[in-house]
Every structure is written in C-alpha cells, then in structure tokens.
C-alpha cells in the first residue's frame, strides 16, 4: 500500500539547510493501524505531509498503491488527496461558515460524486453525528467537531486515513471516543496512520514508528493493544 525508499525532506531557510526528514524507508500494508511518535521537530508532521501528497520529497521515492507519486501531475495529486486519502487534523480544520453536512459533502463535490448529500449524511451517521448535521462547527463541541472531520475524511471511502494528533485538542475521555472510531474504521479495513506523542493514544495502534531528529529509530509491533 505505502512504500517509501530513502525519503528525505530538506527545507532551505536562507543559507541554512534544515533536514526535516532523512532517509525514511517504511512499508505499510493495507489495513494496518500505525502510530507515528516522536518529540516535536522529529519529522513526523513532515512524514505525514509527504504521505498525504501535500508536499514533495527532496529525494527518495514514495509509492502509493504501486503508483510512483513523482510521476503524478498536480491535478492527479489533487485527485489522490480527494479519493485515496482522508485527512484528520489536530485543530479539526472545518469550514466555519458551512454546516457539518456541508463540510462532509465538500470532498464529494470536488470529486464530482453524485448523491453527495445522502453519502455525506451516511458518513455522519457512521461517526454518530447524523442529528447534528445542520449545525455549524461553532455550535459543536470539540469531540463533535473532530467526528465531523473524521466523517469528511472517510466520506470518499479512502484507502488511507492520515490523522495528525487528532486527540491533541481533546480531553482524555473524548480522545478515547475518537480513537475508538479510528479502531472501528481500521477493523473495517481502512489503513490508519496516526501522529501522536501520547503513549496511551499510540497504544490503540498495532504498530508504532518512533522518530527522532528526522530518522526512524524504532519500528515495532505493539504487544498490547488498547480497546
């Protein structure tokens, strides 16, 4: 599903080169649930941006579902982000003026999918928020907003959901509710890659990749999985 080979990212800040990620080679199979951990500045967000096709690597290769990302043009990358990948962010990133339903509908509109309203409502049902479909984000609690964001991420039935600290702005119990949604999505076959710096959250995943200073320094299968 995901295969990277010596993937590196270097930013230039004036004359100084900052190596945000160095020679990351990972292989993630379909249906995996992976947590990426590490202190801030360890390169985990860079990895997520590269995996999500929001950014191009400085060197190395990235194959997503056997496609070399390098060979795709801007429009094809947009389509990959639309159809194959779902994003969940720490600060939810919902459109403030649109209702929950309209937020969830948006990827369908960009993907020109028919019956978008019905499909969006189904996705909201899936995260248990069908009743609040008409509400705007500022009328929802943090946990509800994140559930809308998850519904938006899964509405196009992507193969991969990338979640960047999805519980970072939530309290522990709400965070656990969100994590159980990810667990259940994973049990239905969706590949989930999750960035976190909380051990408790990472323990929901079956595999943990730990990063430090742009390198992967630990990649292990979790023996105990939280439920």
């Amino acid at each position: 599903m995901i295969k990277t080979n010596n993937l590196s990212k270097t930013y230039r800040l004036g004359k100084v080169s900052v190596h945000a990620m160095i020679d990351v080679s990972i292989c993630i199979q379909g249906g995996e649930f992976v947590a990426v951990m590490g202190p801030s500045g360890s390169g985990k967000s860079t990895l997520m941006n590269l995996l999500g096709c929001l950014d191009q690597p400085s060197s190395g290769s990235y194959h997503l579902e056997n496609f070399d990302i390098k060979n795709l043009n801007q429009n094809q990358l947009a389509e990959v982000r639309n159809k194959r990948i779902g994003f969940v962010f720490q600060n939810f990133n919902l459109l403030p003026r649109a209702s929950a339903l309209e937020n969830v509908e948006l990827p369908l509109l960009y993907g020109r999918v028919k019956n978008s309203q019905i499909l969006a409502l189904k996705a909201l049902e899936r995260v248990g928020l069908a009743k609040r479909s008409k509400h705007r984000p500022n009328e929802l609690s943090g946990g509800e907003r994140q559930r809308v964001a998850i519904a938006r991420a899964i509405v196009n039935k992507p193969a991969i959901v990338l979640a960047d600290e999805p519980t970072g702005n939530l309290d522990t119990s709400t965070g656990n509710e969100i994590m159980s949604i990810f667990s259940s999505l994973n049990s239905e076959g969706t590949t989930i890659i999750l960035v976190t710096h909380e051990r408790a959250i990472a323990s929901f995943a079956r595999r943990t990749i730990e990063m430090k200073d742009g390198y992967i320094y630990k990649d292990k299968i979790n023996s105990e999985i939280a439920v």
Partner: protein
Amino acid sequence: MLIFDLFKMAIRSLIANTMRTFLTALGMIIGVASVISMISIGEGARQQTLSTIAKFGTNIITIKPGKKKTRHVSSDNVNTLVLEDAEAINTHIPLITGVAAQVYRSAQIKYGNKNTNTTVRGTGIKYLEIANFTLYQGRYFSSQEVRSIRRVAILGSTVVKNLFGDITPIGKEIKIDGSNYLIIGSTIPKGALSWFDPDDQIFIPVTTAQKRLFGVNNIQSIDIQAEKIEDLEIIKERVESLLRIRHGIRKTEESDFHVQNSSQWLNSWGDAAKTFTYLLGGIAGISLLVGGIGIMNIMLVSITERTKEIGIRIAIGAKKSEIMQQFLIESVLISFIGGGIGIMIGIVISRTVSKIGGWDTIVSSQSIMIAFGFSVGVGIFFGYYPARKAANLNPIDALRYE
C-alpha cells in the same frame, strides 16, 4: 467540482460579508452608472445639436466674402460680395430653388417704452423658405417691396415676446435705430441652440437694410438652396466659377469668397459632439478602472483572511483550477452585480437629467452592453491575480496559517 457548486460557494461567501461585498460593488456601480449616464448625455447632446442644425436646412450652400486659406474670419471690411452676385446666381445657376442675399447687424429696436437689442437681417424674398422659417401671422415682404426699398419687417418669436408680450404685432410700427418700420408678419419659433437663438431676429428687405439702415453696398452672405442634396457639389462648382468670372479672378489667383456646403458643417459639428461623448465616457471609464482596483484589493484581503480555508480545500482534493475558479467567480459576481445596479442607476440619472435639464438623453443598448461587458471584464482582469495567488498557496503553510 461542478460550476454550479462553485457559484453556490461564491454567493455564500459574498453574502457572509454583505457590507464588504456592497462597498466593493459600489466602485463598480459608480463606474458603470457614470459611463452610462455620461455617454447618454453626450449622445443626447449630439443628437439635439444635429437636429437643431438640421432645422436650418441641410441642402444649403453658403457663400461668404473673404480670402481663401488665409484662415481669416470673414469680417465686415471684406466687401467682395454684392447684391448683383446673388441675382446672377439666381438667373444663371440651374438646379436651385432659391437664393437669399443677406446683410445683418445687431440694432436697437423700440416699441413704445420697450426696447430690445436684436439681429436685423436684411434679405430677399426666398429667405424664410431657405432658412426653414414658417410664418405664424401676417405675410412676408414681396419682391415689389424689396425693389422699392420699403420699411417693412417680419419679427422672430423671441422679439415678439420681448416687445409685445401677448399682443398681436401685425400692423404696429417699431423703431429700428430711430426710423419707423411697419410690422407685416411674425414667424413660428424654431427653438434656441445654446449659443444662438434663431428666433431673436427680425427680417427686412435687403435693399432697405443696405441703403436705409446700414448704409452699405456689399452683402455679408448668400444662401443658395438646392432642389436635391445630391446636386450640392455641382452647384457649388458652378457658383464658384460664375463668381470668379464676375469678380475677374485669374486662374492662378485664389477666390475672394468662401463657398460652404451645409452638410459639411453638420458633419463637423457631429464629429465634435462625438468627440465630446468619447471624452465624457473616457473620464467615466477611469472610475470603472478605480472600481476594478477596489475589487482586486478586497479579493487580496479576502484571500489572506481565508488562507486556512484554501489549505483545507487543497487538502481534501481541490484542484488548483477549482480554487482559482472559486475566487474568479466571486470577483466576477461582484462586478456583475455592480454592473447591473450601475446600469439601472445610470438610466435613472440620465432620465433625471433629461427631465430636470430639459435635455434629451439617449441610453443606447450599445452603451449598456459596453459598460456591462467592461464591468465583467474588469472583474476577470482584476480578479485574476488574487485568484491565481490563492491557487498557488502552499497547502502546508496555508493549513498552519492562523
């Protein structure tokens, strides 16, 4: 994304900032309204000028004394034309319906204790017809009265109003420079031009004017009316050669008179008025440009404000072209709405001007289309740069933007 959804989104974001949208559109409204009203006022002025000039007759050739090509405005000391020239033209030139020799000067007119200063025009029996005047009361003077140098006068309507008010002037006597003249007729008003009132004059026999009133032997102009407008050029040539022979001018010399065709005059006036219209439209067009810059300004602000939204849209799969279209549609919608309202206000302004100013204005569908097309064009032109800026945002930076 379908264009319909893009429109829906653009309308929604315009409504979310109603005040800002309105103020931005206001630039376009003022621009388009001023273009429409200015062009309609200019066009109305042109049409009115042309139709008033046409009242003087369009198939007229006018001969004035003076040297050609000297750019010297003919004045009283150029005395090359005489009454006999006019008579010769009348006898020898075919295809004409009438000739009217003229001498004119302003003079003091008195009736009882009222007096007025007006133009006294000494002329022939064909003048009324040639100059497109119509008798209102009484009669015009006859050739007999011209020959016998009689003191008779026909008054223009403005003179009648000034001296007599509502009283019928026929049969009364007025004093022109101290001597008595019998009023035998009056004319129907032709309507004043802004610089000249054709009704503010009186007509007397040309001989009377020369010998009794002004004490001159020359005449100041000869008007010739052609049967058909197509014959004007031929008549002009013949008159020229006739007068050259009569005045004894050799081939190498220039004529001591000007021959002017009234349709040339009409054309040059029309052209001048057209230039005036373009000038007005051009000045108004500048406000359209300023309105467009206002749109660009607001779109740039709006894009900075919505950086995060743009990042989100890119992350969930919006193509560059779709981001660009979204913002272009917004700017075009603003200018479209502004253009629409501007046209309505422009029409109202030009109607009001014609009502209050008594000045005909013409709102042509052409000027509406030009103004509207311009406003949409301005929307695209000034919306393009901000929209492209939005489409080229880096999604990672955009998502991090607070």
